């Protein structure tokens, strides 16, 4: 009988380097706290919102980087600013709505006021009343304010960072991943067509692993496979950025491969004669001129840009606790969509999100792992598909991009 001693669980990474991940990383409060400090407040770019969501001066979005609440604004000078959503005085939230329009932010607690750039500009009763009370004369408002973030934009996406050391977003992504962002967004005017939030009953890393896991897609998601939206035998590839943290998985319809025998041979339940009563769901239009029907792109530590046929969306992963994660979906169209194209996007929205034909399983499978690994923090997952490294690959029967994530994770966490 294996009785665990009453000691702190292991902190050593098991043998096998990137192809083993110990389960304690998904279970421990101290690991979670370290992630907040070293990853989310560390040398990373974190997706904040879309430029189109803060189009006019005064527009703001309140979101999170990890646990930390932040406000993103467009100020009077037309520039984008981001700063912590926290009053410098006693720590209360400044913005109480997810988005809106404001001239400034005044804390409801004691009316300390901040500009759209995040500067402290006013303190209620600063000089007291009738010459009595008030702040000391030497209190310097310029020295007190919420921490300001570095902000960068990329083809309509807004990212923020707490780090002055993190390289420019283009370098952070790497040329190949950058080119895939350009492919979807460059030169186009975005339009939000829906926003949904999904509460995931699992550690944030289990979802990010899932995004980077091209191996599971056609096995867990039957809908994909049956309709040849995605098969591992289709043309496609995996791109892993050199630092490991970012990835792209893409595929294109390859008519020659459609009768592939490999699926039947493996007796994967994806083989079925299930057919749609209304196949208009799969109507699509050539949007990119390259035949690529699926491109999933992830940016460390928590951003996803998705093109599944004409269904374009961004996803923002926000950890809330060791075992809870918020996943924010923003479904996108473009301002020059024809009514027919927009209708196709609306129909294809059935594919993704919390009720998506090819994504609803991702909402529960992380929870299956979280519950499955209870009690065995010292055990590890096995990720040897496609070898042990984290390189780009022409085969999507690989876990290279997940290993890439762990490469970046271990570097930033120093574990």
């Amino acid at each position, binding site marked *: 009988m294996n009785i665990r001693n009453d000691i702190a669980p292991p902190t050593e990474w098991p043998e096998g380097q990137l192809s083993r991940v110990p389960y304690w990383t998904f279970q421990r409060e101290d690991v979670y706290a370290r992630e907040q400090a070293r990853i989310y407040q560390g040398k990373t770019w974190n997706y904040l919102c879309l430029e189109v969501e803060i189009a006019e001066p005064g527009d703001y979005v309140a979101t999170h980087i990890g646990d930390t609440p932040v406000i993103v604004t467009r100020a009077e000078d037309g520039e984008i600013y981001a700063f912590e959503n926290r009053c410098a005085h006693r720590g209360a939230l400044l913005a109480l709505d997810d988005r809106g329009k404001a001239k400034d932010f005044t804390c409801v607690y004691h009316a300390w006021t901040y500009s759209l750039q995040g500067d402290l500009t006013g303190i209620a009763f600063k000089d007291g009343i009738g010459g009595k009370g008030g702040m000391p004369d030497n209190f310097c408002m310029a020295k007190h304010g919420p921490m300001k973030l570095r902000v960068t934009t990329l083809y309509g996406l807004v990212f923020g960072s707490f780090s002055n050391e993190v390289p420019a977003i283009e370098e952070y992504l790497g040329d190949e991943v950058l080119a895939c962002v350009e492919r979807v967004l460059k030169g186009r005017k975005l339009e939000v067509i829906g*926003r*949904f939030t*999904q509460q995931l009953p699992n550690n944030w890393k289990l979802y990010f692993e899932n995004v980077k896991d091209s191996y599971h897609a056609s096995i867990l998601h039957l809908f994909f496979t*049956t309709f040849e939206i995605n098969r591992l035998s289709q043309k496609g590839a995996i791109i892993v950025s050199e630092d490991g943290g970012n990835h792209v998985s893409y595929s294109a319809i390859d008519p020659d491969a459609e009768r592939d025998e490999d699926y039947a041979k493996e007796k994967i339940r994806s083989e079925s004669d299930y057919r749609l009563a209304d196949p*208009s769901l799969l109507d699509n239009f050539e949007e990119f001129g390259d035949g690529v029907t699926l491109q999933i792109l992830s940016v460390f530590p928590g951003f996803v840009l998705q093109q599944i046929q004409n269904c374009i969306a961004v996803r923002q992963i926000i950890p809330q606790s060791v075992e809870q994660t*918020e996943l924010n979906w923003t479904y996108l169209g473009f301002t020059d969509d024809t009514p027919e194209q927009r209708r196709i996007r609306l*129909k294809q929205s059935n594919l993704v999100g*919390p*009720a998506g034909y090819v994504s609803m399983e991702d*909402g529960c499978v992380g929870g299956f792992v979280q519950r499955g690994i209870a009690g065995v923090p010292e055990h590890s997952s096995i990720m040897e598909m496609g070898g042990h490294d984290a390189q780009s690959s022409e085969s999507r029967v690989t876990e290279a991009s997940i290993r890439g994530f762990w490469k970046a994770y271990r570097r930033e966490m120093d574990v």
Partner: protein
Amino acid sequence: MTGVPLSQSELFHLIARAQAAYTRCVDDERAQSWPDFFTESCLYVVTTADNYAAGFEAGLMYADSRGMLEDRISALNEANIYEQQSYRHLLGQPDIRNVSDDGIDVETSFMVVRIMRNGGTSVFASGRYIDRYVVEQGRALLAKRIVVCDSKTIDTLLALPL
């Protein structure tokens, strides 16, 4: 379109009966005949109050034909993976907003608890149905149902329709 003119009271009961049968179908019969409550060229969208107020058209589910509803059920039966679960809908009184040749516009509040296989029972969704019914051969059928959830958040996944 409503055929023989019905009294207000008859209309109310016709719609109330249709809604009771709808919830029974979803809650107790795993939504197997759920598409039968809709017209052939219906619109069914599940969205949130925020999206609805902003005029965003996309839905968590979006179907503009009965065939697409049938596909939802086929996918739940054949393709999608989710832990065993069921709903219990509690509906408010149907509020008949307007009656015209195009149909009967009705709003009804709902609350849905979800019962998971481990026994966990929790409030899964609340909101309102924004409906247009038409009466065909004495039956009230949904030409449109916009399910406007109060919360922006869906816990884990949305499998069965609301």
